[in-house]
């Protein structure tokens, strides 16, 4: 579900505790990644990585001894156990969904719950990443890649017993496009969808205006609403089904106690592979410290932890005996963006110097406890679009200073700050680095950057802004530099962030990156359905950005999860954890009552 929301700007370092948890493979913005823990100081080795058909590459195997806190992470499940049904697990939810209406919901936890309750037409296999049939049994793609005909599964029932058919798909499309439906962020991605037609009760056709390699993903990942529930004259945005969702998914919604918990129950009539766990309780605990205490006292079976908790709390009793810990990479990176409209950052020599002043390896080691990797480009680090042959620019203040001198930024007046005459005016190299408030890790990084720049004759003023204001300032393009992050899909179209047409409204090219050569590459890749050719284009694009350094790309951080040891068969897939694997042995099921 919700794969369509390909890009979403998320709070920098979300994984650090604002708790964007997720193991449901269906929720699109969720983490993915390789299996084995990585000694992550090592930048990804390029020793002949073998990409599979879908281009995801195994995370590199660790070199040398593992850091102590990674020992025992991602334990292999015992393959000889026979799963049994039953049992309840309690998961932490760091913030309550605003609504469980699939179209109007925007937050991560709604995505997580709805990922289990609702289905889309197809979904990616969590290992191979191939599209697997869900509500559609099969699909045909026209020669010109403009129309996608889905043959729907027959005999599927909504949780209330009503049959599912093409009218539901059609209705979902109509509501998505209905301007009175509060789904603006999602609708914005579907501007090129020409229409959805019902061919018969079990066949629908999606028509697209342009050839685009993401069209299958966007059609298949389309969320399907129950028409008979929503279409009863009630206002869609405030519809009671938003508090009581009805889907076709593997779990049924049971109840939602506001400000407390959401409960899901296994759907015994599910058409697909059924989960073993009978009941999931999402318990609302906003505070990280409170949550870890609850986990230690046995009140929680699963939660996301912060890097800090991973290296401190989890090393102490009762965690090693009571919980298994899991570690996998998010489809995410964070970066420092340099606004190219500012006089200092117009020159790529200067931008490269800025990158060389940021000690990414040091930050990764000392602030992020090695729980991530340094990245050099705009794609998910373990996908084939990302070129692992590109090595990050090293941390080299001396070279950076030389580059700055070369670019003409020299301290002429001896005040300790470099300056340069731009358009007849002397400009001091003094800029404001804008960060979202309330993220201590980002603050630490920003402070380090500030200190490093000061030593090289650059004045950095830090500005912490509340998220609403931060976003607005980015959209107004009124900033010098920002630290923030991007969440992505398995596949990623760089158009929205990097194309010059996206500098204006509706786009996410906030730093004003504009380059005809880059535009050409981006446009070439969009109608390219041959994966190998697209990869080639994207490698060129990646190399191009590496030279230009419009961002100082920073880290792909790991998702850190603990699961109570009474839950067996927890497997780390490339898309994270999948609850359908899990089971609780009979003798341990009574822990949470029945």
């Amino acid at each position, binding site marked *: 579900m919700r794969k369509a929301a390909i890009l*979403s*700007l998320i709070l920098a370092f979300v994984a650090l505790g604002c708790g964007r948890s997720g193991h449901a493979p269906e929720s699109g913005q969720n983490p993915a990644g390789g299996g084995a823990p990585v000694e992550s100081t090592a930048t990804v080795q390029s020793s002949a990585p073998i990409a599979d058909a879908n281009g995801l590459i195994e995370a590199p195997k660790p070199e040398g001894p593992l850091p102590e806190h990674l020992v025992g992470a991602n334990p292999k499940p015992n393959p000889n156990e026979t799963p049994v049904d039953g049992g309840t697990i309690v998961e932490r939810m760091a913030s309550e969904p*605003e*609504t469980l209406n699939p179209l*109007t919901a*925007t937050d991560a936890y709604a995505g997580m719950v709805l990922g289990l309750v609702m289905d889309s037409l197809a979904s990616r296999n969590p290992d191979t990443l191939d599209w697997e049939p869900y509500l559609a049994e099969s699909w045909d793609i026209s020669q010109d890649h403009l129309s996608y005909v889905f043959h729907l599964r027959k005999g599927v029932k909504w949780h209330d017993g009503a049959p599912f058919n093409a009218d539901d798909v059609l209705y979902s499309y109509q509501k998505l496009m209905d*301007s*009175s439906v*509060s789904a*603006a*962020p999602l*609708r*914005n991605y579907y*501007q090129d969808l020409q229409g959805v037609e019902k061919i018969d009760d079990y066949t629908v056709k999606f028509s697209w205006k342009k050839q685009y390699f993401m069209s299958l993903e966007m059609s298949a990942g389309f969320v399907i609403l129950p028409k008979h529930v929503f279409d009863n004259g009630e206002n869609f*945005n*405030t519809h009671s089904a*938003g*508090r009581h969702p009805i889907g076709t998914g593997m779990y049924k919604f049971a109840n939602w106690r*506001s*400000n*407390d918990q959401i409960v899901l129950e296994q759907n015994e009539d599910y058409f697909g592979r059924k989960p073993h766990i009978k009941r999931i309780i999402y318990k*609302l*605990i*906003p*505070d990280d*410290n*409170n949550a870890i*205490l*609850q986990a*230690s*006292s046995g*009140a929680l079976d699963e939660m996301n932890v912060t890097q800090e908790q991973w290296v401190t709390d989890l090393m102490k*009793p*009762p965690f090693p005996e009571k919980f298994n810990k899991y570690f996998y990479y998010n489809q995410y990176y964070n970066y420092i963006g340099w606004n190219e409209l500012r006089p200092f950052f117009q020159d790529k020599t200067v931008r490269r110097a800025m990158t060389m002043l940021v000690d990414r390896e040091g930050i990764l080691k000392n602030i992020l406890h090695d729980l991530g990797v340094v990245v050099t480009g705009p794609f998910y680090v373990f996908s084939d679009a990302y070129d692992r042959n590109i090595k990050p620019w090293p941390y080299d203040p001396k070279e950076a200073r030389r580059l700055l001198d070369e670019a003409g930024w020299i301290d002429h007046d001896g005040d300790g700050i470099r300056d340069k005459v731009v358009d007849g005016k002397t400009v001091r190299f003094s800029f404001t680095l804008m960060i979202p408030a309330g993220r201590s890790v980002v603050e630490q990084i920003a402070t380090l950057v500030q200190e490093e720049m000061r030593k090289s004759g650059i004045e950095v003023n830090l500005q912490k802004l*509340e*998220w*609403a*204001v931060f*976003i*607005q*300032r*980015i*959209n*107004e393009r009124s900033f010098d530099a920002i630290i923030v992050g991007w969440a992505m899909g398995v596949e990623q179209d760089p158009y*929205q962030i990097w194309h010059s047409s996206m500098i*204006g*409204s*509706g*786009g*996410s090219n*906030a730093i004003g990156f504009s380059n005809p050569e880059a535009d050409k590459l981006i446009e070439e890749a969009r109608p390219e359905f041959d994966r190998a050719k697209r990869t080639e284009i994207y490698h060129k694009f990646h190399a191009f950005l590496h030279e230009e350094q419009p961002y100082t790309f920073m880290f792909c951080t790991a998702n850190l999860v603990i699961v109570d040891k009474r839950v067996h068969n927890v497997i780390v897939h490339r898309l994270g954890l999948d609850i359908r694997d899990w089971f609780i042995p009979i003798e341990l099921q009574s822990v949470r009552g029945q």
Partner: protein
Amino acid sequence: MVPTLIGITLVTFVIVQLAPGDPVTLAMGMQGDSLSATRGTATQQIVLEQRKLLGLDKPLWMRYPMWLGKLAMLDFGRSFKDQRPVKDILAERLPITIQIELLSVFLAYVISIPLGVHSAVRAGSVSERITTVILFILYSLPSFWVAYILLYFLAGGGYWHIFPIGGASAPEAASYGAGKWLVDRLWHLALPVLVLTYGSFAGLSRFMRTGMMDVLRQDYIRTARAKGLSERTVIFKHAMRNSIIPIVTILSGLLPGLIGGAVITETIFNVRGMGQLGYNAVLARDYPVIMAVAVLSAVLTLVGILLSDILYAVVDPRIKYD
């Protein structure tokens, strides 16, 4: 009172809506700028429609009277975030907040008044000095730190498990009888109430002490002692009642605080009260909720002022209103 209330809400309404950031931009993330965007693009259209949906398309001077008209019929509107009526949201949050705050105010007074009396009567003694030092130490301890210390040592950090780690009730509390429910609730609220209370001992007892010292120097106290009344009667009947006026003044100021809640304490103890509601509403630019909280506080402030005026007359017969 009504003109004052309208004035307060007008100012709040304007400030809140003029503050940078708005709910639509927030929802769109980095996809689009809702106001200064290039006209006519599809995104711009989508954003404008969304603003219309939330009623943000009309100018401010039209929005305020519309909001006020609804308020007159006690309609707070619907939250931008989850589209539920603000009334329902308040109904969920208010009871627990009021319980915590009432307990905390009650505890603060019950402990501070005797402490104040004690330090006035025994001014300068060793026990008075020790009490004062302790109260000031408590006053200066940051509440989030104390909250975590209490949690770790008393509620499940591997030491004593005397109190629950968080929440307002046991998960199965709905099935309890009234007595058991009450005990369970008090047990859950013990730590948060303690955290919200300990800091106010110093201030309150100082007020009480000052008032009391003033009164103890009065002639009628000497007279009372001279006519042979017991020290107990002198202190508690004659002195205390007369020195309680400053405390009453403060009490009225506490009324809006009853629904204000405490963001940090609520978060740490996993209690969903008004503090978090207001805080999150501001962060999300959820105007209807922000305004509802503001109206409640304004009303309670005004009522508090009125109440304290009435209470003066009750406590001190010398004060009369014509």
